[in-house]
């Protein structure tokens, strides 16, 4: 599941004469085979996306009657809205912090787990439990654990500077907990991605480095990291798009609070749509979010040279 465009079709051997050539034409499915799936996907994913763009030009529409185009008032408001500016800053902070928190640890553990440790099967069985729990269950669990009155927060809070244990009650504490809970949930996923990537680094490279006398750390920085650059891109793109649009954790754990301290863009969109019933404005927000996340992933793909499909095995 690399994010780059795949080869159009498997490279075909030069056309042969005789039965092979006939075979190349016979028995190929028509593209109509793809039609049901394509139409279904268009209806429930692509059309809503376009509809969202349309609604974003329909002004303050609340779902009653039909929507009419009124121009870019919602987009104008989006640009001027100071709460949205704050939400944008917060969303970016959350995304950057999540990346900084998850990537080094996932990389370190993933590369380690790709090696040959004893008891790895047992270890990973426990390690990957968060992978199968729902964001809902995880958020509710941490909400209970972080309850200042009877949660673990009461015991842990004083250690990390919250003497009353009310971590979720402070803006920075709440943000930190969003980063932490997100990490708790998604770290195993990214660790697995890195583990899969690290398994494919040719052992030959390490053997050569060992002969040259390179130490463990040098090997990590000069072999593992460069070899994993496509894996890092994949993982980072998934992570960034995921945190930019993450909704469940904010909704359940902090509800955007305290105040509006953790109101991210996707939560602001939810509030605008389903608390204020302003679908036009919420659609403008949503569309903006898609544009932002697509641009960011394209930028990351371009920046890391992932799109050029150069093989990491170049020169071998």
């Amino acid at each position, binding site marked *: *599941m690399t994010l780059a465009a795949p080869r159009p079709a498997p490279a075909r051997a030069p056309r042969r004469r005789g039965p092979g050539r006939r075979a190349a034409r016979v028995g190929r499915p028509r593209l109509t085979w*793809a039609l049901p799936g394509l139409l279904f*996907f268009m209806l429930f*994913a692509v059309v809503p996306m376009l509809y969202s763009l349309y609604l974003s030009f329909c002004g303050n529409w609340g779902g009653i009657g039909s929507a009419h185009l009124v121009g870019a008032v919602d987009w104008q408001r989006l640009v001027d809205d100071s709460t949205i500016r704050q939400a944008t800053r917060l969303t970016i902070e959350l995304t950057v912090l999540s990346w900084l928190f998850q990537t080094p640890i996932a990389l370190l553990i993933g590369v380690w787990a790709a090696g*040959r440790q004893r008891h790895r099967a047992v*270890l990973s069985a426990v390690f990957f439990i968060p992978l199968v729990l729902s964001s*809902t269950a995880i958020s509710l669990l941490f909400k209970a654990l972080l309850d200042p009155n009877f949660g673990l927060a009461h015991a842990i809070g004083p250690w990390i500077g919250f003497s009353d244990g009310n971590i979720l009650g402070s803006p920075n504490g709440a943000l930190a907990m969003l980063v932490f809970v997100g990490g708790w949930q998604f770290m195993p996923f990214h660790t697995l991605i890195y583990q899969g990537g690290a*398994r494919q680094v040719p052992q030959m490279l390490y053997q050569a480095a060992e002969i040259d006398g390179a130490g*463990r750390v040098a090997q990590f920085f000069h072999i593992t990291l460069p070899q994993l650059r496509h894996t890092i891109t994949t993982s980072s793109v998934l992570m960034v798009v*995921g945190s930019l649009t993450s909704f469940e954790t904010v909704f359940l754990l902090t509800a955007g609070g305290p105040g509006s301290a953790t109101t991210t863009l996707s939560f602001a969109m939810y509030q605008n749509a389903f608390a204020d019933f302003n679908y036009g404005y919420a659609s403008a927000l949503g569309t903006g979010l898609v544009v932002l996340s697509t641009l960011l992933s394209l930028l990351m793909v371009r920046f890391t040279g992932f799109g050029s499909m150069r093989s990491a095995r170049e020169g071998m």
Partner: protein
Amino acid sequence: MRRVAIVTSTRMNTDPELSGRATRRRRPLRARLRRANPAAGLASLVWLLIVVVPVYVMVNASLMPQGEALGGKLLEPAAHATFANYQLVLRSGFFHLLLNNVIVTVATIAIVLVLCVPLAFAVVRARGARALLVFRVFLLGLAIPAPVIIVPLYVMVSKFGLYDSLWAIILPTAAFAMPVTLLVLVGTMRDISEELYESMAIEGASPARMLVSLVIPLSKGGISTVSVFAGLAAWNGLIFPLILTQSPQNQVLTTGLWNLSSEYGVDVPATLAALTLSAIPMLVLYLAARRALISGVMGVGGK
């Protein structure tokens, strides 16, 4: 793309492990120490603890009477362990939530497979630029996150008359599982060798026949991987049921848990019991099908 398929075959995963075990015995102690990576080992132990403690507290405190949990000593083993919280949760209509969740999950997997297997087959085998275009549409779909289009989807689902029905959850969930499914299936099907197709074509097999007796049997690994992914998305999804359904009879586990937790309020052990109960089906499945799941995710990072 091809890496997905390579990693999915578990044989590849166990091979280095086995040979590793053999070489380790022969390797002298000093070399073994040099290969060891204490920093990463320590990090994984710490993270293991971070994973285990909340899960332990969840199970442990779910056995406590409310009074004991209010004392805040959630780490100590429950002194007066009781199943009363579980009984309360089961009486609150938990089985109904579970049943709805199973329906949603099974229907989602069925729709995704019925639509995506022929789709992937066509993308891999049909000729021409249009097959690529179809594929591109789905790649684009990867970038559309579900929460972002929830507003237009809500309006559309209401217009279709599907609002507040299980279909309102199933259909969008299936649609959003399709891009990843297609990527994995296309990767798997590309690895089926051209010769096999050709020999079937010489015998005059129709595309349908090829799909049934060649492509599907040889893509079993990919199909089980995508079933796990689509199933997890359906089982764990919150945003679609939250926005697109309303009445208690259409609640699924996620919305039900949310409701129960606000209903129980300060009765934290009851909430934790509900959380524990909701996690059991997936945990059991996970322990049974860990290999398929893990190797599936690992393939995501293929270079």
